[in-house]
């Protein structure tokens, strides 16, 4: 196998998405002129984007097993990156599947699917970034389309606010990240991850550590870890619901992967230093996420806080700085994608008075109107609360195990205590659905095409204990060859 062929096959998923993005641009441009049935037009665009995720997913499955460096080491394809790419593509497929052709909220345009596709392409690049420059490029490719889709509901003030807030804070975080990157480059003399690691071998200099702190802070924005979480609730609330679903399911997987790659590959010799930062981020996120969600009345805001807490738990695994910790994060992010997909599958299926549910109290009495939907939501809520034998429990088991292994017992104690606080607001949703009656009827004939996403996700959540052995083994293998 010669060089170009290897490069081509290793980057095939990205090529597919890039080409499909061009196809979508053309489709959007030419179909617009015909003006014949916007409905059919959206259907075509949506199918095309679904097809590209599916094709890219198949391409990921066919990726080589070992580590491949691409484009002068700008990108590194490891089995770990491949796994996370598969996860991202599954999440993107789910998130796009959930958007019906006539959703409303200003996103019934070809540009929506196009922008999401570009963002997903950025995420795939983030996952395999192996250099500070490719890292920044991929990160911006991911962020810019997301700023736009967050503000797509042009007639709603909240959506514009969300987009603006997201953009400004995102720009700030990019600034932090760039500043950190330039410090690191200045003190290590290279932007390559392995060269930075080599420079750190001789003992971390103050400049490198400061640069590392800035870089990690910039990435913490992207995964919405406290205290860099401020944008999350507002953006989740303001953005159109399908965009919120996308935010909740996909980008954090990419950002978490990037954070793991950066910390392990480039800051590996300085584990003692970055681990402290991650511990603080983790504890703060768990506490902010759990306590912030209690008083929320908007379900999207509540899930925003819930995702902050989830990132805190995942970071507890990362903080350990061990192979067990990385394995734990892989397992945690896997459960996270499916829980998010199932939760938004339910939220995006229910409508009241023609608009999607926003308030938590809108869920009241769901169990008598839609028993299957409410059962799905109940399972997701119990799983997010970490109640065994559902998937969420195993995620927590592994991250806390990693934390205990690394000697962070207090972090694990904070984690389990905040998970009890968290259980309170998850139970509140179950209470509304099951213990109360509906005050106004749900819309009849709610869309049914979300069933596929819910069925797959709930099956994964409920039957997770069957596969956990295999998954843990696989994740352990991934970590052993990738890090």
């Amino acid at each position, binding site marked *: 196998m010669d060089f170009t062929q290897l490069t081509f096959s290793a980057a095939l998923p990205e090529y597919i998405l890039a080409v499909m993005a061009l196809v979508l641009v053309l489709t959007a441009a030419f179909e617009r002129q015909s003006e014949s049935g916007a409905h059919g037009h959206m259907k075509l665009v949506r199918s095309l984007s679904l097809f590209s995720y599916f094709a890219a997913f198949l391409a990921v499955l066919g990726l080589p097993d070992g580590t491949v460096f691409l484009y002068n080491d700008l990108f590194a394809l490891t089995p770990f990156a491949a796994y996370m790419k598969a996860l991202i593509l599954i999440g993107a497929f789910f998130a796009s599947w959930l958007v019906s052709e006539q959703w409303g909220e200003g996103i019934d345009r070809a540009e929506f699917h196009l922008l999401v596709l570009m963002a997903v392409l950025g995420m795939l690049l983030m996952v395999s970034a192996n250099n500070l420059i490719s890292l920044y490029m991929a990160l911006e490719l991911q962020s810019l389309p997301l700023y736009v889709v967050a503000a797509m509901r042009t007639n709603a003030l909240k959506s514009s606010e969300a987009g603006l807030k997201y953009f400004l804070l995102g720009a700030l975080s990019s600034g932090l990240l760039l500043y950190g990157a330039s410090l690191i480059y200045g003190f290590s003399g290279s932007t390559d991850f392995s060269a930075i690691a080599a420079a750190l071998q001789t003992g971390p200099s103050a400049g490198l550590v400061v640069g590392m702190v800035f870089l990690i802070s910039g990435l913490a924005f992207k995964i919405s870890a406290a205290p860099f979480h401020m944008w999350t609730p507002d953006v989740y609330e303001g953005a159109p619901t399908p965009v919120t679903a996308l935010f909740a399911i996909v980008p954090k997987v990419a950002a978490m992967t990037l954070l793991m790659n950066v910390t392990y590959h480039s800051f590996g010799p300085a584990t003692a230093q970055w681990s402290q930062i991650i511990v603080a981020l983790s504890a703060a996120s768990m506490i902010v996420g759990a306590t912030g969600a209690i008083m929320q009345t908007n379900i999207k805001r509540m899930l925003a806080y819930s995702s902050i807490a989830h990132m805190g738990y995942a970071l507890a695994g990362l903080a350990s700085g061990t192979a067990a910790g990385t394995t734990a994060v892989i397992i945690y992010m896997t459960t996270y994608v499916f829980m998010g997909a199932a939760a938004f599958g339910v939220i995006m299926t229910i409508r009241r008075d023609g608009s999607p549910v926003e308030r938590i109290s809108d869920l009241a009495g769901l169990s008598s109107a839609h028993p299957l939907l409410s059962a799905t939501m109940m399972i997701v809520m119990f799983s997010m609360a970490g*109640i*065994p034998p559902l998937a969420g429990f195993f995620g927590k*088991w592994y991250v806390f195990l990693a934390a205990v292994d690394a000697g962070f017992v207090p972090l694990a104690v904070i984690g389990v205590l905040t998970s009890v606080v968290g259980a309170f607001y998850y139970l509140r949703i179950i209470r509304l659905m*099951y*213990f109360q009656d509906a005050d106004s009827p749900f819309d009849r004939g709610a869309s049914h095409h979300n069933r596929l996403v819910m069925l797959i996700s709930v099956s994964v959540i409920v039957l997770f204990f069957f596969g956990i052995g295999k998954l843990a*083994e696989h994740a352990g293998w991934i970590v052993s060859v990738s890090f």
Partner: protein
Amino acid sequence: MISSWPLLSVITFLPLTGVLFLMLIRGSEESLAANARLVSLWVSGFTFFLSLYLYFGFDSSLSGYQFEERADWITGAGISYHLGVDGISMPFLLLSTFLTPLAILASWKSITHRVRDYMIAFLVLEVMMVGMFVSLDMLMFYLFFEGVLIPMFLIIGVWGGAERVYAAFKFFLYTLLGSVLMLVCMLVMYHMAGTTDIPVLADFSFAPALQFWLFLGFFASFAVKVPMWPVHTWLPDAHVQAPTAGSMILAGVLLKMGGYGFLRFSLPMFPDASSFFAPFIFGLSVIAVIYTSLVALAQSDMKKLIAYSSVAHMGFVTIGIFTLTEQGIAGAMFQMISHGLVSAALFFCVGVVYDRLHTREISAYGGVVDAMPRYASFFMFMMLASVGLPGTSGFVGEMLVLVGAWEASHIVAVLAATGLILGACYMLWLYRRVIFGRAEKPEILELTGLDRREVLIFVPLSLLVLWFGIYPAVLLDIMAYSVSDILGQVGASVSAQTALR
């Protein structure tokens, strides 16, 4: 042929076939309800039948685990699918599978809405209870131990009384808070020992200083479950709000999970800490016995009174376990099984009249004996068993615990014995106010007597209580070896410590 089956797995997961069936059936509300009741009764009945088969195959002259099953689960990590029963878990397994069909029968008429969902919750609950008692892997144990919360939360919250939301939340969060602390300890133990296999962990000696913390973590979970004073406050709420069958299972089986946990984990794995903390637990238990008995005296709600009496009776159990004597532990085991039967029957007694008059206020009754003579006699028998009349199972358990307690500490035995007197006071007083006296209210005289279904529930419970009371050896023999095994593990470690000093 049947002997080659993985019998424990079959018993544990058999109710899931019922769940699957109930999920698939369709029909009108009424036919669905009727089918759901029958299916769940048959499935749980058959599960009981299988567990009887297990009981007859169980050799009580062997120590260690029997009917062991092991399969790969999380390979290479020391976590496996490991089931087995010994003399400690066998009686609880039988208790769970025995009470579930009775509880389903008890909710035959009182549950009228969403019957299918109710039965699904009950069958899932049975899976979790049985699974917890037969798990020989710590992670599996935790899965089932916590999994119990899901169906029970729904049973209280959906089919409970007026304050059900508060009660369900309190039950769930209280128990979860205790359990997550246990989870951290389990993680530490797994980290130390590299396996979650319970028999291996029982032989693993943790450093005494670490045992101290591990014991406290497990104690947080089991003390809430038992429940011990002062973390018992969820119990009266949960009991009062839960439907009758929910209370039966809650008092009959779920409370025993705490005692079982002490016997399976705390004693064998943290022997030094167990003997260190024994006086502390005696203190809490004696307070529980006396204080909650006094509280029970002041109750005007029947279910609440029985709930408080449960706390007092479980106080005997914790005293018995931590006497670390053969009589004490056997007595605690006996008391748990006896209390499982008696309290389930007592909650059903309340349920029977509640179904008719829709009130649990003691003052609303009086003179019930005139209208329901058979009910009055069953109630009396169970009330006396609860008080600990010789000839009933209640006597044997309390007697053995007191003998054990006398060996451990005279003062504890004396104080616990006062609890017996108080117990007689509140139970007899309850009985007098509900059953005797002149029936002044017209609705009391119009009460209908027990129907066949209700008698069918009372008879097996009464027979067992009587049988265990007259011939306690049937139960004591099963657990004798396992009890001395546990004591061996505790004693070996403690004597090693004294030798070192």
